[in-house]
């Protein structure tokens, strides 16, 4: 019997983090979750080691990755799903809010990849899944800071794909539509009618897709963006 695969999830403690952790544990993986500090630690119903830290602080993130590497010895999957969305017209968005959106939604993922992917390169194998949002492609009212950062994340992932393709590392993006409480928080009942499946997605559904993409049989899939949105957006 081979050793369990090791997965590291980097997130902001939301519904997706927990669902992905549960989905990966269900598949027999050994899972750790880095949760952006200052947020309420999620209640994870499966055995997952949690580390709270400021994922936008390179020094702290690097140290946490180092400690993780010493504990686990390897990393097979890196799932980056930090998420911060504020509802504000662009003209009223403060520079701080802009900076926060870029730092959490985009820069933190760059940092996680920068510090974790070298281990995958050394192993000659690894799967990176970065979670974005269909807002990046569709645009959305009062969400310019979020849309810009999430779009940057998609294209960052493409660049990284090219840089690590020769080393057995595959990088893909999962881009989500309205999930969980999004309709209540950012949309309206009218938005539901625009979704063919007439509802928001469940975190478990997105987590299943993320897990699928980490499958080692999908060796030929890299640089892709896979959407899940109930049909709301069909690229």
């Amino acid at each position, binding site marked *: 019997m081979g050793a369990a695969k090791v997965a590291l999830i980097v997130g902001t403690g939301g519904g997706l983090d927990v669902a992905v952790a549960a989905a990966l544990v269900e598949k027999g993986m050994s899972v750790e979750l880095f949760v952006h500090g200052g947020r309420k630690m999620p209640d994870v119903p499966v055995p997952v080691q949690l580390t709270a830290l400021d994922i936008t602080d390179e020094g702290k993130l690097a140290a946490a990755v180092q400690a993780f590497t010493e504990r686990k010895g390897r990393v097979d999957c890196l799932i980056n799903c930090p998420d911060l969305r504020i509802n504000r017209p*662009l003209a009223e968005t403060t520079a701080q809010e802009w900076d926060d959106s870029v730092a959490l939604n985009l820069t933190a993922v760059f940092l996680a990849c920068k510090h974790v992917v070298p281990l995958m390169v050394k192993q000659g194998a690894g799967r990176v899944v970065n979670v974005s949002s269909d807002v990046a492609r569709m645009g959305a009212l009062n969400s310019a800071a979020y849309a810009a950062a999430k779009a*940057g994340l998609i294209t960052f992932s493409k660049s990284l794909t090219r840089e690590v393709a020769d080393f057995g590392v595959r990088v893909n993006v999962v881009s989500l539509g309205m999930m969980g409480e999004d309709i209540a928080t950012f949309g309206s009942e009218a938005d539901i009618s625009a979704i063919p499946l007439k509802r928001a997605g469940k975190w478990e559904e997105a987590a299943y897709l993320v897990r699928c993409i980490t499958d080692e049989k999908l060796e030929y899939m890299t640089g892709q963006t896979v959407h899940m949105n109930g049909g709301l957006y069909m690229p």
Partner: protein
Amino acid sequence: MEQKRKAAIVTGAGQGLGAAIAARLAGEGFQVVIAEYNEALAAQVVERIKAVGGDAVACKTDVSDEASVRDLVEFTLRTCGPVDALVNNAGIYPKSPVLNMSKQEWDRVLAVNLKGAFLCCKYVLPGMIGRKSGRIVNIASGHAVRGGAQFSHYSASKAGIVALTKSLALEVVSLGILVNTVAPGISDTGMPRIHDSEEQVRIKTARMPMGRLVKPEEIADAVAYLLSERNTVITGQLLGVNSGQVLFGG
């Protein structure tokens, strides 16, 4: 009575594409503010525009700095009047692989190329919203959708530009403000020569669909159209001006 010229701000207009756009807009009758960090370059652009009868003025600007952008817009209001058009062209183009890139370089590229565009939009919008009129063009790149190796920060910043355009366009379309992105192909300016030798540029030129680089004036033409009154309904779009080098749109 002479009709007051419309005012346009072009960022990063000290050279290359930005200078070509500024010259084109001056030719269209705009009073152009050359928002540029390099004062010597900005002064040369102003001279060249004035030499052919155009109207331009320089304003030293660091688009990544909120106070500098606020000053730019206030300067424009004092000197030229309300801002009718904005071209977010300022950008930097360093090269590093993700696994070996300093956070400082990453942050700098995102700050100049993407946050700069956000800040300029933020400060010109109140005036445009008040007058229910305005035109914005943001300059991106084929990298925005391709994601070039060793240009992850640049590519991410340009992808962010495309998305910012879409979201902002939706917000202000009912207020008479149209916002679009232009993605130039490799153009015959200093930019392709930042990282490539002349021989490498020659090879890339031969591979371009028309066997030549795009002229900055050709890109400026597209920008000028999108900023003009002739553009009445085009908004939120990404227009590639690249001889077919990259085909956008799914």
